[in-house]
């Protein structure tokens, strides 16, 4: 999901205006920044565990799995609470952070936990549907966000421009896919629901079959 995450951040701002919008934006994008860092440090295949020490703990697992987002949500919520002493705000920061992963399950396919299934509806494969969904989330979030604004500003040109710009960005992202919305092979699963491409037993069976074939070639 792209601008839909910001739609969620805007909605959260409308629900509790005391929390800074930049905090909610950072929380909503947290997993994606971790993903960008993983790519920047030389990790091309998000399924690979080449640069991570733990078995089965891949880069995409580190940025988008359930345990990762739980840790990220706790860290951001504690940081917010430590600086603002606002318990409800901290809970909201945690919820916005956590919302990233279920939202991504709609638009793409993500790992759940080490050894767990990769799940997702891969809506990116249907750009028009993805655009409609994310634009709707942005519009809903923007409507809630306006409640946090002073009355004369809520219907101002700047407020409308922000909405139009976000929807235009989403349109550009959908038109530019796969360059923008994560050109990763894991986003195009063989099944739109649930699949486990890296089952250890299946990999062992394939390796055994290859070894048997090679042995047959060597010793006819």
């Amino acid at each position, binding site marked *: 999901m*792209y*601008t839909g995450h*910001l739609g969620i*951040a*805007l909605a959260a*701002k409308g629900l509790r205006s005391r929390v800074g*919008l*930049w905090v909610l*934006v950072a929380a909503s*994008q947290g997993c*994606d*920044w971790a*993903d*960008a*860092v993983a*790519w*920047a440090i*030389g*990790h*091309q295949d998000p399924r690979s565990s080449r640069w991570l020490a733990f078995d089965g703990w891949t880069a995409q697992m580190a940025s988008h799995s359930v345990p990762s987002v739980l840790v990220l949500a706790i860290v951001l919520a504690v940081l917010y609470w430590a600086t603002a002493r606002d318990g409800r705000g901290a809970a909201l920061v945690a919820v916005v952070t956590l919302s990233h992963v279920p939202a991504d399950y709609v638009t793409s396919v993500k790992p759940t936990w080490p050894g767990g299934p990769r799940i997702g509806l891969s809506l990116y494969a249907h750009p028009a549907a993805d655009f409609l969904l994310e634009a709707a989330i942005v519009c809903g979030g923007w409507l809630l966000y306006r409640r946090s*604004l*002073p009355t004369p*500003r809520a219907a*101002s040109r*700047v*407020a409308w*421009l*922000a909405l139009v*710009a*976000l929807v235009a*960005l989403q349109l550009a*992202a959908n038109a530019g896919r796969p*360059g*923008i919305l*994560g*050109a990763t092979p894991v986003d195009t699963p063989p099944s739109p629901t649930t699949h486990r491409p890296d089952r250890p037993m299946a990999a062992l069976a394939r390796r055994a079959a290859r070894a048997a074939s090679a042995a047959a070639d060597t010793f006819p």
Partner: protein
Amino acid sequence: MAMHGILHALLWAAALLLEAAVVLIADHRLRGR
């Protein structure tokens, strides 16, 4: 491949920054700060 990874990261970071800038700049102006 390493260059591809860096380019992907830069493109993705630019996309994230762009959408964040849109809402944060608008919010800044709307609240008159």
